[in-house]
């Protein structure tokens, strides 16, 4: 209790605390999104337009090949369903806190409420979100899909998620974030606390599909135990006002591994500040960070950070940025830090335009310049993300085709 009170006090004090990076949004400019909504039992009963919005971020309304589905509209849970209930448990955080006494030990433990104004307001609003648990030793064959949707204009959405993959379990999660058609301005604040226990594997894919005046401030920390594996795929290809994210993976057990793939396109008017941080706190831990970003006129800041605090650590950071317009900016900021002797951390960063030679190589084979650029861009962004539905692939292809046209 004492704890909670002091946390609350700290959070209140942090309400005016700007984040270290990114445009400083004024929380008062946005109405707090509604905590009430009607429950949608069957997602296929939604309008065709809403279903398309879901599909475009990898959420399949008919829930085919999904072990569970969770949808949050504004600040309220509008749908929860589980098909593979032996392998995954899925409910809202508020329900989970009521059901299990131990969930509080996982709540606001990795992300500090007073980190900045965004975490503070999310904490103080007692935000809802999803709770996913993969019980020890269980391997779900299909991913859980979760969707965080802003459905009203000029609101701020606050979300708090917890994922626990217990010992030896395996789980795939796809999280799609989007706005309903017509919602142009808004703020999305999303706290995610992820626990990968001993020998467990989590494959986490996040697709962002925002609108031109949306500010996005995810705050994610992942805790990986011995021999655990955490794979993160992050994709944001559509226009947005500002995304600033710096997910941090703590490799806390011997032999833990993480791979973080980030793919982003900054359109004119967009600012993508995409970071990834790995802290190696246990021996023989490994990490691969891959960032592939494109600017067609917006600003990209690709941060990659690896901090080695234990022996036998290996990490590689690859940060490639394509500039397809002279209006755009690409800034790559790799940071490597070794605090013990037996450490191998390396990075490879490159920003610039597509080599003329590559475009002409394809043109010599009969491709138009547009087709050539499209093919190179597609290859550039393809980091081999598994398990995304065909609809999303088609939508990605469409975006890439447009980028190919714009690049000329």
């Amino acid at each position, binding site marked *: 209790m004492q704890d909670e009170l002091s946390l609350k006090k700290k959070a209140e004090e942090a309400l005016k605390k700007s984040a270290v990076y990114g445009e400083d949004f004024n929380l008062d400019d946005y109405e707090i999104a509604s905590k009430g909504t009607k429950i949608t039992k069957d997602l296929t009963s939604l309008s065709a337009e809403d279903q398309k919005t879901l599909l475009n971020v990898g959420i399949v309304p008919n829930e085919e090949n999904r072990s569970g589905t969770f949808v949050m509209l504004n600040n309220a849970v509008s749908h929860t369903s589980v098909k593979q209930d032996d392998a995954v448990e899925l409910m809202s955080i508020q329900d989970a806190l009521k059901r299990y006494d131990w969930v509080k030990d996982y709540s606001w433990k990795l992300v500090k409420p007073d980190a900045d104004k965004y975490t503070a307001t999310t904490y103080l609003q007692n935000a809802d979100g999803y709770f996913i648990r993969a019980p020890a030793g269980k391997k779900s064959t299909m991913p859980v899909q979760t969707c965080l949707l802003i459905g009203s204009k000029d609101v701020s959405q606050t979300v708090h998620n917890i994922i626990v993959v217990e010992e030896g379990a395996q789980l795939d999660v796809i999280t799609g974030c989007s706005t309903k058609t017509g919602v142009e301005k808004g703020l999305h604040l999303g706290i995610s606390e992820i626990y990968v226990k001993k020998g467990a594997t989590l494959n986490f894919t996040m697709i962002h599909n925002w609108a031109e005046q949306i500010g996005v401030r995810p705050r994610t920390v992942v805790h990986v135990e011995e021999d655990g594996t955490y794979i993160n795929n992050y994709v944001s290809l559509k226009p947005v006002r500002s995304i600033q994210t710096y997910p941090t993976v703590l490799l806390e057990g011997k032999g833990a591994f993480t791979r973080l793939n980030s793919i982003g396109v900054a359109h004119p008017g967009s600012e993508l500040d995409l970071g990834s941080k790995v802290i190696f706190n246990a021996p023989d831990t490994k990490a691969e960070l891959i960032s592939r970003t494109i600017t067609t006129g917006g600003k990209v800041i690709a941060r990659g950070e690896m901090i080695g605090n234990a022996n036998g650590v290996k990490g590689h950071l690859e940060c490639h940025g394509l500039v397809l317009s002279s209006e755009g900016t690409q800034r790559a900021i790799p940071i490597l830090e070794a605090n013990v002797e037996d450490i191998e951390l390396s990075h490879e960063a490159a920003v610039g335009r597509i080599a003329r030679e590559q475009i*002409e*190589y394809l043109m010599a084979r*009969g*491709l138009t310049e547009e087709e050539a650029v499209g*093919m190179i861009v*597609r290859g550039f962004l393809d980091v081999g993300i598994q398990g995304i539905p065909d609809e999303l692939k088609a939508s990605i292809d469409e975006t890439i085709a447009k980028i190919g046209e714009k690049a000329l």
Partner: protein
Amino acid sequence: MLEIQNLTVEIGGRRILNGINLNVEAGFKNVLFGPNGAGKSALLMTLMGFTGYKVVTGKIIFKGEDITNMSVYERAQMGLGIMTQRPPNMSGVKLRSLLDVISKNGSNYIELAETLDMVRFLDRDVNVGFSGGEIKRSELLQLSIQNPDMVLLDEPESGVDLVSIEQLGSTIKNLLTGGSKCAGKRRRHGKSALIITHTGQVLDYVDADRGFILCNGRVMCSGNPREMLDDIKTKGYVECVKCKMNYL
């Protein structure tokens, strides 16, 4: 088919080709010899229209049209195709997806990929980590599927092992002749080609019509390609330069 008229080319302000005159008649397979650094590759790259090869004077006429200022794409559309000496690494572009696009014309690449032992490369990034011989096979596979009317080959046999050369040679032969054995038909229906070679090995597979020797960015002479090769093998290019000097 192809007429190169008084072509002078600069790379980065440096003159690389100097007043080149050279023709390839329809159905002819002509060969380009010359020492390292002579400008052979530069000539082929210029013909295809790659950036960096600046035509200072002269013209390139292809199928009766002046293509000197056309884009690479337009030249390819007109039926010009090339196997370059050093193609770029195409990170992210899978050989399969490239072939899928090239074969829009309906040709099937799987069979030829098998013949050239390239099936296991289909899902790899084009040229990335390919060995010298693998690059040649991959280039030839793409070019055969593209099936251009006039083929520019830059040392197609270099770096290819003795076993693969047979595959490669006969694939080139098929590409150039369309399988037709009759010399008269070949002349009328076969493709035109301009082929760079040092060893002349490719001549075992291609019925070459004319040879040219390029030295210091100039065409020194032309003649029977086999006789020229024999001469080069015995006397080298030194004679060539002397000969040209006598000429002048």
